[in-house]
């Protein structure tokens, strides 16, 4: 009996192991292709798909230099995009713009490094237009997935990295770990240029 059970168990183990490894392999290899596509995006100034049938494209690079972590962020936060890299939540601001930019990724792949990020660490976000913005991690919190809200009136330049909490749980849960960071430096005064361009020609813009 043991003779038949052993190969069966081995096969089942192999399949499970394979699926687990597949998730990691997909996450790893996709990042390689994404890195290439992102470099091209910056160079050409056009969104470039990492592979021809992809339904998403790279929009930013997140780096935490102290721990040597880096990931290419994709547009959108659908499950399929998240398989390949962190996703930029569509409804939130772009990095470097006024408001809160939210990036989200799996705790066991691309954002595994989040637990190693300490308050005070510097997080660099390179956007698809090549501009880089540096943020400083200044707080972390744990919230339920549906309890997170952005104050649309807050004038801050904020970055939030989100992943599942707790880090080493084996099953999914409703809690999310959020790392909050505030903009400390940008390579160009981008926001000012943008807003003055969009209202060019309106002399009476300044409210009385």
């Amino acid at each position: 009996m043991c003779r038949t059970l052993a190969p069966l168990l081995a096969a089942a183990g192999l399949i499970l192991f394979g699926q687990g490894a597949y998730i990691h392999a997909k996450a790893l290899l996709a990042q390689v292709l994404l890195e290439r596509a992102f470099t091209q995006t910056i160079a050409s100034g056009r969104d470039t798909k990492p592979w021809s049938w992809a339904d998403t494209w790279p929009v930013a690079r997140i780096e935490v230099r102290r721990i040597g972590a880096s990931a290419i962020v994709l547009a959108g936060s659908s499950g399929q995009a998240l398989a390949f890299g962190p996703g930029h939540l569509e409804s939130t601001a772009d990095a470097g713009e006024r408001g809160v930019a939210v990036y989200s990724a799996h705790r066991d792949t691309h954002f595994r490094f989040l637990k190693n990020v300490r308050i005070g660490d510097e997080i660099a976000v390179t956007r698809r237009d090549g501009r880089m913005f540096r943020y400083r991690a200044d707080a972390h919190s744990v919230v339920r997935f549906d309890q997170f809200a952005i104050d649309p009136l807050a004038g801050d330049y904020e970055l939030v990295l989100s992943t599942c909490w707790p880090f080493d749980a084996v099953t999914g849960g409703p809690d999310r770990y959020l790392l909050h960071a505030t903009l400390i430096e940008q390579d160009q005064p981008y926001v000012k240029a943008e807003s003055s361009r969009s209202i060019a020609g309106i002399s009476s813009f300044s409210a009385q």
Partner: protein
Amino acid sequence: MTAVDALDAATRPRLWRAAKFCLFLLTESAAVLLIGFAALFLNFQPAWSGGLPSSGVTRPGDAKSGSLLLKSEQGYTEAIRLGVDVDLTVSGPTIRARVTQLFRNPGKDWVEAVYVYPLPPGGAVDTLKMVVGDRVVVGEIKERQQARIIYEQAKRDGQKAALTEQERPNIFTNSVANIGPGETVLVQIEYQEPVHQNGNTFSLRVPMVVAPRYNPAPVVQSVEFKPNGGGWGTNSADPVPDRDRISPPVLDPAENAPVNPTAITVRLQAGFALGEVKSHHHAVNTEKVSDGSQIVRLADGVVPADRDFELTWTPAAEKAPSVDLFREHVGDADYLLAYVTPPSADGAAQKPMPREVIFVIDNSGSMGGISIMQAKASLLYALGRLQPGDRFNVIRFDHTMDVLFPSPVPADNEHVQRATSFVSGLQAAGGTEMLPAMRAALSDSNREDSSYVRQVVFLTDGAIGHEEQMFETIAALRGRSRIFMVGIGSAPNTFLMTRAAELGRGAFTHIGSTEQVEERMRTLFSKLENPAVTGLSAKFSDAKSDMTPQVLPDIYRGEPLVLAAKLDKLAGSVEIKGRIGDRPWSVNLPLANAAEGKGLSKLWANRKIADAEVSRTMRQSTPEEADKVVLALALEHQLVTRLTSLVAVDKTPSRPDGETLKLAELPLNLPHGWEFEKVFGERMRKAPVERRADDARVQHAVLKRSPVPAATNAAVTLPKTATDADIKLAAGAILLGIALLLFLITRRQYRPL
């Protein structure tokens, strides 16, 4: 010695077994890696639970991911080429337009071509001609269903046929059956349209592309407006039953060269000496024929059909005449068209009433790119124009909605500042759920306070397919509010704008480029800030008249009153009365002075048809009554309407039996300045149904103000971000471990002792 030997003998097979086990692990991991990489980019669904369910993929959505697919299908987009020539003749108050569409079939199949195109909403289509070789077939007006049957019959019989149908008052479809391999078929339609006038400026607009519309999924939301709403079955009606008919494929500009080259010629005979003639979005060449007459052509010959053509002209004289009368004799009736511009009240004479202004801004995905910048700039301008005594509020919407303040607030520095920063931070994304926003804007919390004039300023591109529901909402809820529509972008939905402004007793304006923002908003504000001409009525002294619009609208500063009438005789005069602010005003016009005009009967009939549709929306007449009026007018005046179509059939059969016919829906350009991903990308990834299912989930940002700060803010659902990779790895390893253990045990059992 023996001990060492024994040990040796015992170790060797054990070592061998260990080596074998290592080899096993190695092959195993190699296999795992192989499987992993092979399947790398296939989508095994179960492991990823974070994603929203993908919605029913729309056809334009397909076009994005399937551009390769299109080619393999006998060149869907390659099969038919289209060229458009638009020839406009402006004679005084009217525009006669001839639109020629050239369909060329370079392929090897017999093709039916279907082209969806826009026309100005005031345009009365009355002629269809089809040119096949040297034969010209003239279309006939038929009831829509009947026309369809005639066309389908001809299509089956292999005859060439053309059909012009109205999908919306500003969207038409031309179908051309049986275009043979290598053949070219010309289809020509003609329409009549009144010239627009605003203050000193006259204008015409040629829409060139139907912008992709947001068509909400069928939901029970529309219950309250159904007259016989009872069971669930009747209420779950699709808000856009004809979504397929108004959603042709759209090409991604990043991957395709623009299609549908269009040439435009305007023969301008203004009837007065021309001052400035200006094309707002296209480079043009003008050729002067005489003082009052010019020919305007596109400088580049042809342009891709991806934005509206807008031409304005002003008289050389200081001021445009304040009264214009035109007449035409058709059959046994006289038709009259009058433009009367009331004098503008001098503001010093009366103190303007304080205003309560509700600004609504559309930040849906279709507004992405230039449009949102224009909309934001316009709204920021508007905020800056508020007076200290005014009250205001700001609402933004995509498929969600935020109301900035719980109720309208005084326009003081602090509130305006807050609104300014709120507006500056807006981004364009998501669907276009316009109804809840309109409802919120019309909910009047200070109803009993009549010392304020209530105005709603609505900034949108109007890219929705359920206009009728919008109109019903406005008709039902407008109360004392007046609605001012601001059409944003290169191809706004003009029909929605004009009809909504009409039902909302307001005005509308277009902003097609950032340069226009200040000029257009200034004009709009002069309308908002100055008293309207109200209580207008017109009376003919001698002639019996059938007048339209039935109820004369209020007139804002600079606008003319446009009046069309059918008279039994051209005698006596017409007296127009009204009130400018609180002062009475009247003017008496002798009809004998009217100048000769062209196509006025069609304009009158088209305006009457619009009246019938409006009274149906307002529930002043039943749908059956309205249909009867529309049908009678359409058949008498040969107009294409909701209920009538033009059909032309070439009796000579051309397609031999046995040859099959392929359908080609002609793809459209994306309107200029739009971002493909914002429209189609978002639509594919998001499942709007989920958000829309109940209104309760609409986020009223500050409405639900409570001590908990989180509740006042825009909630963001954080995606699920845990994979089962680790648990699978662990479980797999454990199983493998057990298997190994069993393997070892069984081996041990067989080992001779």
